[in-house]
């Protein structure tokens, strides 16, 4: 099953490689991994999307907690949470397609960031499935380039990951 794991870690050199190294050394999947400092510059917040059996996910949580630089870990999938991912996508936009692509972008609540004679560059945020659906709706032929950040997640309401 797919899980979104959030963690806070010391914002120190090499901390990211400890997490990445753990996943490769123990053969765990990483679908995506995002990391950036928080409002407290000494802390980084990381979101990892992974998958595995319940036993594997339990081990992932325990092994992450065992890393000395990791301050706290939360499996967001265990409760209500919000997941967002940002995608920048460059499309071939020519002739009749230009109007159609603009309509589709509006429907998905995307924004066109850059326009040239032959291309649109579009910004879209949402959960993974929404971004996937947009790609499906456009069709592979028109896609020139795709950049996705990977999911960031946060718990709903009082589910707070802090020190």
């Amino acid at each position, binding site marked *: 099953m797919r899980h979104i794991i959030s963690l806070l870690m010391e914002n120190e*050199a*090499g901390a990211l490689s400890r997490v990445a190294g753990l996943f490769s050394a123990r053969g765990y999947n990483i679908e995506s991994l995002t990391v950036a400092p928080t409002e407290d510059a000494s802390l980084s917040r990381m979101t990892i999307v992974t998958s595995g059996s319940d036993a594997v996910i339990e081990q992932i949580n*325990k092994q992450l907690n065992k890393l*000395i*630089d*990791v301050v706290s870990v939360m499996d967001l999938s265990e409760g209500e949470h919000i997941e967002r991912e940002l995608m920048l996508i460059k499309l071939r936009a020519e002739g009749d397609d230009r109007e159609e692509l603009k309509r589709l972008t509006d429907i998905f609540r995307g924004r066109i960031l850059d326009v040239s004679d032959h291309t649109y560059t579009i910004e879209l945020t949402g959960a993974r499935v929404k971004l996937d659906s947009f790609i499906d709706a456009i069709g592979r032929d028109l896609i020139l380039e795709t950049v996705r950040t990977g999911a960031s997640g946060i718990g709903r309401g009082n589910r707070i990951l802090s020190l």
Partner: protein
Amino acid sequence: MEMTGAEITIRCLQEEGVEYLFGYPGGAVLHIYDALFQQNKVKHVLVRHEQAAIHAADGYARSSDKVGVALVTSGPGLTNAVTGIATAYMDSIPMVVISGQVPTFAIGEDAFQEVDAVGITRPCVKHNFLVKDVKDIASTLKKAFYLAKSGRPGPVLVDIPKDVSAHKTEFVYPMSVNIRSYQPPGRGDSAQIRQAALLLMSAKRPMIYSGGGVVLSGASAQLTDLVRLLGFPCTNTLMGLGGYPANDKQYVGMLGMHGTFEANMSMQHCDVLVAIGARFDDRVIGNVEHFAQVPRKIIHIDIDPSSIAKRVKVDVPIVGELKLVLNELLEVLRASRQKPDVADMATWWSQIDEWRATGGGLRYKNSSEIIKPQFVIETLHKLTGGDAFVTSDVGQHQMWAAQYYKFNHPRRWINSGGLGTMGFGLPAAMGVQLKHPGETVACVTGEGSIQMNIQELSTCKQYHLPIKILSLNNGYLGMVRQWQEFFHGNRFSESYMDALPDFVKVAEAYGHVGIRVDRPADVEPAMKEAFSRKDDLVFMDFRTDPTENVFPMVPGGKGLSEVVLSEDL
């Protein structure tokens, strides 16, 4: 007063009460060696290869409750140390390794003797640090010692660039250490402990399985109390030998791939299993699915939550320091009016005695013609009364030492269990002998393993370490040969050690005493002679039966009850 980073490094070791520093100098650590030269509190032991420095620090730590400390230079110094660090990591040994690094301004430029020490060691240390500012040396070393010995222990690497060891700052050694992201477990959960007690009282076929964690946490006394109070059978893992006394009648021997028949059968057929400081690894329970076929309740007590439910499902997990958890469990059990059912226990013990009688225990057919390796270990046990420190290398000799030397005390059996590092025995024995001068330290090895760090005979000479080396020389990489005989159609691919040196002459060349023993009748006299030489290192080259195999054996991937017993019996 301002001090250099090098001086601060040595001062920190003094503050930590470090007695011995095992190391090897080189360019990146010259400042640190210079500071070491100008003091006399920390004694340095110059090894002949960095791997040996780490193993020696490791042996020192395993035979005491102290942190082992080693110092190596950058590049090849560090890479040579990696095998030792991984060895310590797999067996959770508290250790601080200081490595030199090229100057900060040269890092990343492929400088001479540069290697990414933090990157290379990351998967085999509890934690590591690169110190980029001289002001951080003292606090980093304080953290390193704290991390190494607290919680589940392990090796910690501190990489110090050469310019950082030359820069100056005020020396302040922190009195305490606080790492917000690291809180090692203390007491166990009381409700879980009460639940464990209830389960224990209701058991019909209970089993206590204890591992290296008991030895490391100094919980042998608590374990022994628990086993005796309950009247249950107890088995130790390879790493846990000595955690429960081998001469006790409730002890059923070591379990696992080369464990006793009774230990493995009891483990397989018990209905309530208590695992204490053990981790159900593949060499201990064999095939996981086979093990899970028999329904049983499992109580698992460990300081590391990630060890729990890693390979087997656990019914009552208890995370905490073993001593504290066992003390609380003992209190609960003593206060309870309930006792294990007498009739059930009698039935269970008669079953175990039956296994003891039919199976196997540990037996071999001795010979008057050719030296049986088991006989050498039995003689060692007899002559030292089970009280020697025994280090070993890896292979058949390691298993025979584990089977036939009956350890009654913890921290006496020093071996590389997790990583299985050949070349561990002799340097580890150096660390043990330095920690315990005047005590008998025996290194049980083979002609294969000993050659992986034989250069340390030179270190032994320099520091007058009267280690007794028992080499079971069968002319083969014995365990490899055994597997080739069993599983590869007797095709002994590269397992014959051709062109062996004359080990007596090798020992003599290093200034030690060498004895070659060919006949069974000479085993005991030779050993007596060796042990009577209190001040000499004696290398005993026992020419043993090359066809002897280690039994019982649970073949790899098989279940505990699918054990192969010796064909001799």
